[in-house]
C-alpha cells in the first residue's frame, strides 16, 4: 500500500465505503481486547433484558472501525484527533456501512478534516463524527 499525499486529496473526496464485520465473534474478540465485560455487547438475550433490541456494538469499537477506514484510505497517515458521537445503538450481527468524506483542508499543517458516519441497513446514521488526519507528502 502506498501513502496518500496531501496533494493527491481534494475537498469533497469520498473515502472508499467500507462494510464492516460486527458479528458476535468479532465483538467478542474486541471486548476481550478492551477488557469489557458487559453482556449487552456479547449476548443478545441479556441486551434485550436491558431494553435494547439486541446486543450492541461498543461505541469505542465503532470509533476504532472508523479509524481503520481512514487508515485503509490513507495508509501511513496519522489521525491527530477523532471525535465520534454514538447517536443510536448499532446492532451486533447487523450489516452496517462506514462512510467518510473530506470536508476541510489545511495546507499549513498538511491535515484534512473528514466527516465520518456509520449507517445501518435502513441508511440511518447510528454513529457520526469527524477526524483530523495528517497526510504525508
Amino acid at each position, binding site marked *: 500500500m502506498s501513502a496518500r499525499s496531501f496533494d493527491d486529496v481534494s475537498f469533497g473526496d469520498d473515502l472508499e465505503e467500507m462494510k464492516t464485520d460486527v458479528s458476535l465473534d468479532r465483538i467478542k474478540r*474486541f471486548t476481550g*481486547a478492551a477488557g469489557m465485560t458487559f453482556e449487552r455487547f456479547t449476548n443478545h438475550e441479556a441486551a434485550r433484558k436491558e431494553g435494547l433490541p439486541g446486543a450492541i456494538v461498543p461505541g*469505542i469499537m465503532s*470509533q476504532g*472501525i472508523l479509524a481503520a477506514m481512514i487508515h485503509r484510505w490513507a495508509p*501511513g497517515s496519522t*489521525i491527530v*484527533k*477523532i471525535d*465520534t458521537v454514538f447517536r443510536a445503538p448499532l446492532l451486533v450481527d447487523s450489516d452496517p456501512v462506514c462512510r467518510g468524506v473530506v470536508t476541510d483542508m489545511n495546507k499549513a499543517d498538511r491535515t484534512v478534516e473528514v466527516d465520518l458516519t456509520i449507517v445501518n441497513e435502513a441508511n440511518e446514521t447510528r454513529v457520526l463524527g469527524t477526524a483530523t488526519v495528517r497526510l504525508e507528502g
Partner: protein
Amino acid sequence: MDLAALKRDWTGFEFDTAEFEVTEQQMLDFAISCGETEARFTDPSHEDFRAPTTFTAKFSGRRMLPEEFPQLSRRGFDAGKCVEALAPVRAGDRLTGTSTIHDIFEKTGRSGTMIFIVHRMEFRNQSDEVVSIVDWRMVQQP
C-alpha cells in the same frame, strides 16, 4: 438539580490516577477486531509497530466519577468519545491515566433530559510524555 453549581464545583476536578500496561496481544486484538490492515498496527515485527489511534479509549480508571460526586441516576450511557493522539503508544509502555471532570452540560434528546459529564483522561507514558487525551461524554438521566 442545580446544574450551574454542579458545573462550578466539579469542572476541572482531578479525581483518579491509574496505571496500565500495554501488551502486544492487546494491541493486536484491538487492531484486528476493528479491521485495521496496515502492518504498523497488525505486525509486531514492523519497525513502527504501534497501537491504533483510539486504543487508549479502552482504558477506564478505578472510578468513573469522583467519590463525592452526587448520584444523578442509576443508569447512564456512553454518548461519545474524542481521542486526541499526541504520540505513539507502543507494546511494553506503562501508561498513567489521570481523570478529571472536563465539562458538565444539560440538554434534551430522544431519551429525555440528559446531563452530559465529560470525563477527560490524560495518558502519559513511562517517559512522562503525554501520548493521548480521551474525552468520554457520559450521559446521566435524572
